């Protein structure tokens, strides 16, 4: 029996995993992946089965926890945004070496167009060099189906599987047919080859040879995958390769009746035999893929002397930003003048429209921190403020114009320390509570060990605000963490980030920035959005 549900791509995958016998879901919040773990947390079946769904401190700890569950034979998922895979890269790449025991799916949700991210990196590259097979669903139904398929693939090949999502699938809803009978969970069991899980050189050398041999089997599985296929077409002037959701954009352009032979790729390694078959029947190839030109680059190689290949490298399709149905249709219209009718028909833009950038909420405590910080900084000649990732990154915009850098999770503290090492004074780091426990603590230890003249402001809103208010792992523990790391108690302060505390905050910032050593100021006020939700939940 099947039932129909309206689900986001993220939710479809999460439900698919639960229905396929999931035992543990691990994640750190990050747009557009957050809704995967949130769905598991809200699922009655997951609660009944006590499926693990607590947030982890960061993507690396999440990945390792999931790997531990897989070691014990149970099915696990770990989800993150694309840049989260950078944080989890060490265990991710090495998990190909240990292999998996219970099915393990690593979800990376890419964010082309950078709707809520600092870059457009394409997660498929990671899987390629780690020698990990990849699934890339074209729609919500495949996201659901690939959970079960992915677990089976992972258990049969004894290796983790990467599932690549993109914003337009993660955050788009569609009707999905789901199983009414969820599978049972795996019982506890240990790896058949325990040596493989101890990655010391003697073991690793043996394992690596095995992994390289398995790579060929993975390619064979891609060739026979139910998610990869050639859809025949009669117009052989062009063959189209479309991966992931690009397949939908091609179908959209031709109203579901693509006249050209069309290779749909949703499982990697790239199925070479299918590519060869398509190339053999067409005069030229157009590659439509979301993200960087991953397949196209392989097809062209360095010399690009094979059959004519079109795509992003020649800028026929824009290289940056999201792929759209428009960009695919325009590419076909440009290549074949008789398909000019496909050219997107946008009308005239309206005149009276200005951009409306996002801003910190009115009444947000970060605003008070920035207001006081800016006032305090006026007393110094050349202050630099090293920012971090979260709502407070918006402090870059007017009216605050308060931060000089924002790079990656935790970089505020370490960059401020490096700047202080270079002679910068004052060097101020501003970081949120969740980002601090994600990746700020280790950097703070560096600063403690050298008593670096850095002023760290932890703007503690008691939540992970940017992604919608998930529990923050350091709530209630920040002072103890700082003291435990060795911050001098005389230079560790806590203050409420309230408008009425403006003068106190300004004075405190000024005093600590004048101090020639490390200070930490925890400015605390609950995120008003999270506070509102908490109040609502209580009144229910």
């Amino acid at each position: 029996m099947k039932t129909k549900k309206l689900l986001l791509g993220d939710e479809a995958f999460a439900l698919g995993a639960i229905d396929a016998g999931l035992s543990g879901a691990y994640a750190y919040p990050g747009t557009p992946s957050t809704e995967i773990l949130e769905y598991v947390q809200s699922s009655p079946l997951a609660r009944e089965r006590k499926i693990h769904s607590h947030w982890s401190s960061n993507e690396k700890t999440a990945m390792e926890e999931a790997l531990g569950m897989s070691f014990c034979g149970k099915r696990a998922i770990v989800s993150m945004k694309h840049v989260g895979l950078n944080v989890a890269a060490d265990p991710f790449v090495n998990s190909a070496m240990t292999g998996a025991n219970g099915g393990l799916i690593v979800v990376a949700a890419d964010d082309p167009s950078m709707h809520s991210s600092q870059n457009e990196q394409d997660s498929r590259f990671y899987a390629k060099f780690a020698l990990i097979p990849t699934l890339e669903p074209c729609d919500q139904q495949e996201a659901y189906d690939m959970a079960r398929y992915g677990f089976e693939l992972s258990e049969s090949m004894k290796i983790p599987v990467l599932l690549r999502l993109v914003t337009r699938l993660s955050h788009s809803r569609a009707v999905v047919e789901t199983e009414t009978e969820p599978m049972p969970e795996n019982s506890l069991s240990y790896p058949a080859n325990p040596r493989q899980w101890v990655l010391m050189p003697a073991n690793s050398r043996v394992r690596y040879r095995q992994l390289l041999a398995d790579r060929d089997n993975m390619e064979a599985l891609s060739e026979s995958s139910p998610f990869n296929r050639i859809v025949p077409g009669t117009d052989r002037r062009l063959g189209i390769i479309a991966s992931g959701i690009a397949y939908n954009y091609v179908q959209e352009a031709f109203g579901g009746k693509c006249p050209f032979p069309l290779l749909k790729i949703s499982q990697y390694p790239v199925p070479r035999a299918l590519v060869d078959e398509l190339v053999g029947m067409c005069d030229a190839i157009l590659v439509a893929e979301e993200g960087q030109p991953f397949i196209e680059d392989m097809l062209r190689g360095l010399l690009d002397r094979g059959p004519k290949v079109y795509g992003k490298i020649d800028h026929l399709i824009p290289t940056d930003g999201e792929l759209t149905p428009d960009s695919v249709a325009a590419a076909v219209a440009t290549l074949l003048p008789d398909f000019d009718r496909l050219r997107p028909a946008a009308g005239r833009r309206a005149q009276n429209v200005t951009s409306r950038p996002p801003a910190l909420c009115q009444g947000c405590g970060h605003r008070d921190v920035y207001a006081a910080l800016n006032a305090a900084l006026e007393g110094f000649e050349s202050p630099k403020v090293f920012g971090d990732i979260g709502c407070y990154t918006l402090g870059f915009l007017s009216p605050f114009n308060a931060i000089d850098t924002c790079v990656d999770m935790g970089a505020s503290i370490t960059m401020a320390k490096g700047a202080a090492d270079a002679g910068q004074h004052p060097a101020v780091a501003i970081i949120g509570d969740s980002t601090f426990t994600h990746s700020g603590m280790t950097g703070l230890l560096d600063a403690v060990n050298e008593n670096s003249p850095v002023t760290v402001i932890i703007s503690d809103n008691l939540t992970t605000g940017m992604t919608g208010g998930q529990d923050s792992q350091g709530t209630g523990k920040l002072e103890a963490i700082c003291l435990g790391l060795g911050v001098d108690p005389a230079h560790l302060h806590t203050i409420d980030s309230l408008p009425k505390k403006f003068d106190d905050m300004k004075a405190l910032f000024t005093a600590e920035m004048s101090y020639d050593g490390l200070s930490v100021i925890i400015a605390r006020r609950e995120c008003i959005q999270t506070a509102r939700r908490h109040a609502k939940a209580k009144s229910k």
Partner: protein
Amino acid sequence: MKTDIILAGVGGQGILSIATILGEAALRRNLYLKQAEVHGMSQRGGDVMSCLRLSSDPIASDLIPSGKVDLIISLEPMEALRYVHLLVPEGRVITSTEPFVNIPDYPDIEAVMAELAALPRVVTLPAEAIAREVASPRSSNMALLGASAPYIGLPVDVLEDSIAAVFGAKGEKIVADNLAAFRAGLEYTQSH
């Protein structure tokens, strides 16, 4: 049937509740639906939009191609203008007239309204005022949905049942308020 809709507004205004109602209605009518929305940074008071596609046949793309949008439903007048170039030539705009001014360079509202009025098919309504009169200003998105109801391609009773179902968990008063706002919006369109 096939209707491609852009829902527009400012982060926090409640366009996603409109999407939820339409999703519920689509499931009830056994229609295909795709609805792409924006989360994360863009929600903090910035412009937000959602593509919502309804059809009796399978839908391929989550995004609506340019020039194929049938209907723009906007909670804010300038936000409606932001997407008019994506409309089909005979496309329609249903928008609230109440500006949401959270930027220093918001254009002259008269000019915004004049540009809207020059469009071939447009319904402008004071959604918040209408909702306030019959229920509460918080239901302005339902007043807007009511005003859009004749153009969506879904029967009014299915939309009303969906509103009742979606808001059901929040109690009878909230359901009644939202239905009242919806009906007032619908009446407004029919009499203008």
